[in-house]
């Protein structure tokens, strides 16, 4: 029966080929587009989270809304070690304090962030945006946002002072020299942030072994929500664990929005191709009514005939899907190495970079498609199922076929 089905397909070469290629076209397009999406979403999430926010953060619960100096996570070193030993992640401690930043006569308000420079630079991309100077390595050195430096009239090597209020009411004072200048492309960050060594900031602001933020960089970003439970066990009741989806809702939503709109397009395409398939089988019925009549007169049951055609439909769908899949897989494999350069935008390059920088995905220069079960399996599956259903739908009439009338059909 299988051989018969296959041969039947080739009775009308042109039609079979056209339909198969139609399926192939749709499968190719949809699976390639989905791989592109998957790849670029992946990259966007990676770029956004590896920029500054990390994959998850631990804070004192009220710090999220109030940003007060005293809202700290105590015993930070111990907690950090525990986290790093138990889970596949790196925990970066950060301290935040508001103060007056001043150089000579000029002073402005700014947010001082105490970080472990070496650890952060190894994990996060923000510190690659140093446009002048280098990453601070010695004590007393700071990294300043470009806009802030400009507003202060400060340059590389200049001395600045920061004055604020310590945790227990004392005056917090720091003298730092500018070792590097940072240009993130985001004015709001550049204008108000400066980074200094963690221990120095803790000391100046009268903080013990406590931090405001533990930024977690996971090996696999999708583990963020999975770890919530286990990490939660290590935390106090007043501490919160937030995943990147909560920290950067715009990234998740942007991706979701894109995904939804793409899906609409895919469905339209798949439906269109299904029409072609449906048409094919309509014609099949029509052409072979006589043949079916004869088969039935010879004793074949209707369901056997239906089964026969279903098999043909299966081969049709399979061939089309395979062709499409193979082509798309080849293209994806090639491009996942080479990538599609974003600079293809030409004059809009700078603006495109700004747009991406705004989504904190500043380090994307190429778009890479990525294989995934979903991207490779969805289109073929949908189309093959669709093919079967189309065939079935058309063939249902066969049950009611009267061999006599069928044979009379021309």
């Amino acid at each position, binding site marked *: 029966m299988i051989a018969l089905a296959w041969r039947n397909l080739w009775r009308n070469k042109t039609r079979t080929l056209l339909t198969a290629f139609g399926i192939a076209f749709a499968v190719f397009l949809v699976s390639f587009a989905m791989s592109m999406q998957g790849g670029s979403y992946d990259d966007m999430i990676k770029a956004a989270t590896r920029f500054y926010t990390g994959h998850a953060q631990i804070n004192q619960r009220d710090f999220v809304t109030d940003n007060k100096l005293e809202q700290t996570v105590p015993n930070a070193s111990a907690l950090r070690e525990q986290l790093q030993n138990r889970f596949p992640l790196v925990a970066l401690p950060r301290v935040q304090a508001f103060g007056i930043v001043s150089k000579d006569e000029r002073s402005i308000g700014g947010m001082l962030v105490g970080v472990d420079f070496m650890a952060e630079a190894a994990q996060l991309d923000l510190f690659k945006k140093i446009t002048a100077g280098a990453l601070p390595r010695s004590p007393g050195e700071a990294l300043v946002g470009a806009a802030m430096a400009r507003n202060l009239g400060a340059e590389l090597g200049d001395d600045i002072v920061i004055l604020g209020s310590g945790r227990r009411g004392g005056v917090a004072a720091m003298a730092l020299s500018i070792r590097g200048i940072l240009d993130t492309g985001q004015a709001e960050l550049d204008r108000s942030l400066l980074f200094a060594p963690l221990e120095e900031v803790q000391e100046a602001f009268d903080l013990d072994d406590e931090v405001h933020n533990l930024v977690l960089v996971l090996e696999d970003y999708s583990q963020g929500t999975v770890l919530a439970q286990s990490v939660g066990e290590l935390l106090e009741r007043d501490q919160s664990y937030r995943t990147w989806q909560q920290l950067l809702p715009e990234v998740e939503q942007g991706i979701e929005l894109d995904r939804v709109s793409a899906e609409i397009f895919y469905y339209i395409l798949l439906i269109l191709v299904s029409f072609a398939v449906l048409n094919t089988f309509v014609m099949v019925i029509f052409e072979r009514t006589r043949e079916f009549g004869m088969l039935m007169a010879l004793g074949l049951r209707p369901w056997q005939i239906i089964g026969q055609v279903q098999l043909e439909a299966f081969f049709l769908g399979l061939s089309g899907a395979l062709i499409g899949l193979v082509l798309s897989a080849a293209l994806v494999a090639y491009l996942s190495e080479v990538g599609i350069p974003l600079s293809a935008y030409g004059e809009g390059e700078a*603006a*495109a970079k700004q747009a991406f920088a705004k989504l904190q995905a500043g380090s994307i220069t190429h778009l890479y498609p990525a294989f995934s079960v979903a991207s490779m399996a969805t289109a073929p599956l949908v189309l093959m199922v669709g093919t079967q259903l189309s065939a079935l739908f058309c063939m249902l009439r066969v049950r009611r076929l009267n061999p006599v009338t069928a044979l009379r059909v021309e």
Partner: protein
Amino acid sequence: MPFRLILQLSVRNLFRYPRRNGLLLLAIAFALAGATVTNSLMRGWQYDMLDRAVENLVGHVKVQASEYRDDPNMAHSFALPTNYESSISGVEVVGWAPRIKVPAVILSERQSRGVQLVGIDPTRENISFFSELAFAGETLADMDDGRIVIGAELARQLQTAVGRKLVVLSQAADGKNRERGFRIAGTFDADSTSLEKAFAFTGLTSAQAFLGDRSSDSTPPLVTEVSVLLADELRRKDAVAELRMAFPDKDVADWRALQPQAAEMFAMADAAIYVIFVLMMGGLAFGLVNTLIAAVMERVRELGMLRALGMPRRVVLVQVVVESMLIMCAGIVLGLIAGCISVWALADGIDLTAFAEGIDAFGMSALLIPVLHFEDLWLFSGLSLILGFIASIFPALRAVRITPLMAMNR
């Protein structure tokens, strides 16, 4: 053979196979309807972005002091000549809005925030989002109104409400700090976008008195910018040229230069629209060709006989093509009508508030309203007709090769 006869023949042929042709018609209509709807949604998104970019106090063209872009400050204000509106004569202008826009600190009893203080003439703000805002309380009455309006979100952050007072602190034209109390006339709702948090509006005259030059009475009132909305956005380059002549020492720029990000995304949307359409037509093409070939094959006997009767090859060709074009036209018309109806059904817009932060980053509003862009629809129809034409060539050629002998052998 006269064309009318060919036409009649084609039409009657169509009705001979209602099911098959009906299916094809449906497929074409579906493709066109789908294209219309997705196109209108994308255009809606694109123009929404444009509107947002332009209404975001940018306008189509802006005149500012040359240092203002790098250092937005009252020190970089300028005096507006009384007859400034005549500066643009060649291009139709919808409106002019002179403003003072400077950074300020706004204080309530419990909180303080950094904002942009904008002194406006409310009657002239029909060119920006201001005139379309919904207010709790009142909006500013006129340019002399000494009260303030802020976003609802800002009011929430400051823990204040309509009718209460705020203190605004900013730098005056002479570089000194000035502060003043302002009563909140009303708060506005802008879907929790950044607009709600960033701006505080007051009357232009009141802002001038607050921050202007107090050294002498005879100085003309100062502004930091004049924003212009044109009747036709495409004429912005002409407007810029004229304004540069009228204000030779000022920074005159259009919205694409002032908001390159939005400009880039605007261009990207154009590209995306066409790509999507082409792909959809591709999906349709397979089914189309398939059906047309089958149509021809079914008529082998008939066509052979017609040839035997003397119908020239050319006529056969034309007839097949005409038949396919007829279906195409019918499908296009049906599809466009269905598409337009769907767009009107969606005219209230699609609510995107679930994606609030994401769309804010993309520069969209929470309500996606589809826009019917008739030039696009004409383009789609034209392209579809061309597709129909091309798709019918192969079947037509096949039809032409039918000899009377073949027909009689059947």
